[in-house]
């Protein structure tokens, strides 16, 4: 079965066509990556995503109607860009009559990291240990989540200032941090670069291969909208 996976939770728009063999094998090596794009997009997620979907389908040698499911990263991520991917997945699923699954973007990064780490013959990248995933939340904050040695999320995702993350007693209990490397300095540790990718997104969508119906496809906002009810009326007459 052919799946379109996409993520707009980070400044990089990620999308690709992934083939899941039938019957599904466990692990990433069973998956076939037909085509993928990873496009630095700044604030142009909508422009990029719409224009690249036909590209990956073409390169994957398939048409829209060959897709059996959509998988989208639900963030956390800066809202405007994040919503572009989520609404695109929901609308594609609706238009094509196929299920659209949402996954935590950090889970997608984590699961692929575990998969790849396991594949490195000498095990230089990752010993059997847990790790944290960090992405940019803007406004001088970061999103982060903690994973155990098998890549299962044990805490988060949170949104916090790096100084507050570092001050947590159990921060970096595993030593390894992956994700947005621009946070290395603020987090006082080397953040090993890692981004979401189509195979990670599909692997994180456990319900997809298990044949379960998708849950609601809603962004992981973590923050409330920035708005406060107005205080008492402001007078215009000088007193």
């Amino acid at each position, binding site marked *: 079965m052919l799946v379109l996976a996409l993520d707009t939770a980070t400044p990089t728009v990620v999308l690709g066509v992934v083939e899941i063999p039938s019957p599904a094998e466990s692990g990433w090596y069973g998956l076939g990556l037909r085509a993928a794009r990873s496009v630095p997009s700044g604030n142009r997620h909508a422009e990029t995503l719409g224009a690249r979907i*036909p590209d990956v389908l073409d390169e994957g040698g398939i048409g829209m109607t060959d897709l059996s499911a959509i998988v989208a990263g639900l963030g956390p991520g800066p809202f405007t860009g994040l*919503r*572009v*991917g989520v609404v*695109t997945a*929901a*609308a594609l699923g609706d238009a094509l009559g196929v299920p659209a699954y949402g996954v935590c973007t950090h889970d997608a990064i984590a699961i692929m990291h575990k998969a790849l780490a396991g594949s490195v013959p000498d095990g230089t990248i990752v010993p059997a240990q847990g790790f944290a995933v960090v992405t940019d939340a803007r406004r001088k904050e970061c999103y982060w989540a903690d994973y155990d040695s098998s890549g299962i999320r044990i805490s988060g995702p949170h949104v916090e200032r790096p100084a507050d993350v570092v001050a947590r007693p159990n921060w970096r209990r595993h030593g390894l941090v992956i994700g947005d490397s621009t946070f290395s300095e603020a987090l006082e540790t080397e953040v090993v670069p890692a981004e979401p990718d189509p195979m990670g997104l599909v692997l994180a969508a456990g319900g997809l291969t298990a044949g379960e119906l998708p849950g609601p496809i809603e962004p992981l906002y973590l923050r409330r*909208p920035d708005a406060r*009810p107005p205080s008492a009326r402001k007078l215009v007459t000088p007193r």
Partner: protein
Amino acid sequence: MADQLRGGPLVLGIETSCDETGVGIVAGHRLLADAVASSVDEHARFGGVVPEVASRAHLEAMVPTIHRACTEAGVTPSDVDAIAVTAGPGLTGALLVGVAAAKAYALALGKPLYGVNHLAAHVAVDILEHGPLPQPAVALLVSGGHSSLLRVDDITGSITSLGSTIDDAAGEAFDKVARVLGLPFPGGPHIDRLARAGSAEAIAFPRGLTGPRDAPYDFSFSGLKSAVARWVERLEHDGAPVPVADVAASFQEAVVDVLTAKAVRACRAAGIQHLILGGGVAANSRLRTLAESRAAANGLLLRVPRPGLCTDNGAMVAALGALLVNAAVPASPADLGADSSLPVTLVSVPA
């Protein structure tokens, strides 16, 4: 179904520029569905539209509203000839939800996509009620987000801006004055209702930008809003009761007086006989009445869509989309984005 049988191209329109998630379906000049999900209640306690709240509501409402419109029209998205979506002007984050959704439907179903101008759509919607647009025409568009005077020579490609507000939109002034009077958001309907019991001549509030050297077709409502606040505060300071109905009526009169006077002046100066009203404030009863009498006195033909079509909706976007398809205007490109200040000269975003 052939175009001739159903009366024109079948177009689905999506509107998310502010706080209404609108999905409309038209067949040429015929309205088949007009589904709107509004987040206005969620903004009320903030006293104005909060962009992030609006954007979240758009995302939640998008697919369900498409379903409602399709059910109402008795069609499926795969039946349509084209998809149109508001590409601007409006709130960027809100616009992008609609643009991304429209693009996804267009891509999935292999339909042409038109990113259209919200202001042009406010004008185009009148075809659904009154048939083909008379052209050239002058259009006065007033809402909480915009106040514009346009010259429309060709709704599918030639619109010029004659003037617009230099500070607050007219609807924004209604909201702010409502707040001064202790009325809930949105203020327009409350002021309209209260004003009926008051006197429009009770208080001489200023008419902004109406001096001989002022821009003839621009608007300014910020000074008026402050004048109303100062007037009310003076009474409050003196411990005198505030004649709320008179304030509402006199304020409302100051707004609609300027709006209609400038619209009529624009028609006369250009020798244009047709005046079209649109936007949420066009639902104001006093604006409609005064526009009618001034149009009649000046030999102008006035067209005002019914209130439900004046406020933001998807039908207006679909109506403009149908006109663009009929005029064989090329569709928008796959990298269509949103432009919060899309100029009205761009009726649709070109490839």
